[in-house]
């Protein structure tokens, strides 16, 4: 989640955007499909309407469209261009072709960051089956305190990532952290989570799982409400067990929502930054070995001030997310039922 968006919401928005784009590609909106509606500007039937709208639509869309063009669309083009330039020592930049990309693909840091991002994503994805199970429990008929549980699970999702990261830093502390204390009770000597490469990304992923679970849970339980209760009643009459009902009714009918949640989780996990930055800190010695792709981008662009190289990383992130999304939609056909 844009991260931030967070996470919050931005991550999810990318996907909704996907849906939106599809819509826009079609002759936008169902009203456009009305064959009786005149489309030519010279059509006499459209005169009244057109005179009615006149310059108004332009007034309505102008502020937003201007803002989007200046602050989003133009910057996308600009970044693609910057990625083909080299930043000089005094800030000027010169065209350098694909040099940045060649340097980037030869840089082991790219692959380390990519692997870390993938490890993080895989761990956070464990939250999807967990939230499917939890959502099916939350939607049991007549369950008490359901809204209390909902709030508890959703709380980490709305909490500020940098603020919750502070307490997790202490929980993960190697000497006096709660986690290692609990592990020591069962005879395990816990590692220095935050300062050991390998363990640090796992620690961050545990927090990522904790904070994203609520969103999946809420979306999935909304999806569950759309499953007709008669199906469960019929299954009850046939003597099907709870587990059998879960496998044969809940999972198949919920699969489009599960798919949605999976995509949102992957897209937002690939944009991991906030939690990693706040948990590991900017001066952690293991940082180079624990970086995510976006952290790598941030460090090159804004700490090392190599804008061209950072732009190339941004374009690679863009391509990877695009590729993963396409692959998931391909894969979707294999297992999503009733979409």
């Amino acid at each position, binding site marked *: 989640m844009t991260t931030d968006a967070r996470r*919050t919401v931005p991550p999810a928005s990318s996907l909704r955007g996907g849906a939106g*784009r599809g819509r826009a590609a079609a002759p936008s909106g169902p009203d456009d499909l009305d064959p009786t509606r005149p489309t030519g500007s010279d059509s006499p039937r459209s005169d009244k309407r057109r005179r009615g709208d006149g310059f108004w639509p332009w007034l*309505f869309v102008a502020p937003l*469209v201007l803002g989007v063009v200046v*602050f989003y669309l133009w910057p996308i083009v600009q970044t693609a261009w910057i990625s083909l330039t080299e930043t000089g020592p005094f800030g000027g930049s010169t065209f350098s072709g694909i040099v940045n990309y060649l340097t980037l693909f030869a840089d082991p840091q790219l692959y380390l960051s990519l692997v870390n991002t993938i490890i993080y994503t895989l761990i956070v994805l464990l939250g999807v089956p967990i939230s499917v199970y939890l959502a099916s429990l939350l939607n049991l008929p007549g369950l008490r305190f359901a809204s209390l*549980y*909902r709030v508890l699970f959703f709380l980490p999702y709305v909490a500020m990532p940098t603020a919750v990261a502070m307490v997790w830093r202490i929980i993960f502390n190697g000497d006096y952290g709660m986690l290692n204390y609990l592990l020591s009770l069962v005879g395990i000597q816990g590692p220095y989570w935050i300062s050991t490469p390998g363990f640090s990304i796992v620690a961050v992923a545990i927090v990522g799982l904790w904070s994203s679970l609520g969103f999946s849970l809420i979306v999935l339980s909304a999806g569950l409400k759309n499953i007709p209760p008669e199906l469960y009643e019929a299954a*009850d009459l046939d003597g099907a067990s709870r587990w059998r009902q879960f496998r044969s009714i809940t999972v198949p009918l919920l699969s489009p929502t599960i798919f949605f949640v999976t995509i949102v989780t992957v897209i937002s996990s690939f944009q991991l930054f906030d939690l990693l930055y*706040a948990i590991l800190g900017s001066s952690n010695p293991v940082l180079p070995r624990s970086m995510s792709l976006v952290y790598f981008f941030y460090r090159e662009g804004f700490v090392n001030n190599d804008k061209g190289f950072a732009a190339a990383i941004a374009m690679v992130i*863009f391509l990877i997310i695009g590729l993963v999304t396409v692959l998931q939609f391909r894969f979707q056909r294999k297992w999503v039922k009733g979409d």
Partner: protein
Amino acid sequence: MTEAIPVRAMSRRRRQRRRGGSHVVAHIVLGVGGLIMAFPFIWQIIMSLSTTAEVQSVPPTLWPAELQWDNYVRVFERLPFLDQLQTSVLITVIRTVAQILFCTLAGYAFARMRFRGRAILLALVLSILMVPSQVYLLSQYQIVQGLGLLDSLGGLVLPGLFSAFGTYLMRTAFLAMPVELEEAARLDGANPFTIFWRIMLPLAKPTISVLAITTALWSWNELLWPLVVTTFSEHMPLSAGLATLIGDRTTDFPLVMAASLLAMAPILILFILLQRRVINGLASSGLK
């Protein structure tokens, strides 16, 4: 399952009660899960009231010997907390108001008005939803730098005034509304702005509140952009200000815990007050 009772003979209510009987397992799973979710917050409250020695003790002190309320006072003395709080509030309010204004206007026009190039403009706006934020970040930074707005409220607020997601959300809401109301108003001679302002906007209130809540949430918590456009901690919002505490003052854990809790408090309180609306809004906007 109680196989002994002939299932067919049971009334619906009895069957539900029978299902309710095994809710014990659900309560155990959800209860333990909920406790794990809440634990970091509870732990943070406890540590914010402890001494540094208690935070670092082994085994962990579950309850401080004496509650150190003083930690909360020190947040205001030692950190530019009020400056950062003010910045966070301003960023959030300005962005939320701007997004509501720009996105409802544009969303309405894209849903209900006819004009040349509408489909192309809409496709352009929505296409940015497919692009991860890093792709425009560098260039947004250069624009803000070029305008001389680094380290200023203007720079912090700028790109977030406009939202493609918000436009999409509002357009969907307006598309679902009955056309008859507008036609009647038009026959009465109302101009498009009056129709929008007096008739359509009030009808869109539920969706506007979803937009407001998501924008406020995202704006309050955002880290990367503030980190990039501000250098001095007094100019930062709380999200970035807290992140700067990681390096130098890590030994003063209770202070950092108190500051974190204070920084999260406004949005958490807002969420708890509006939880039903937030949860339903996010759930439905995720499914549409």
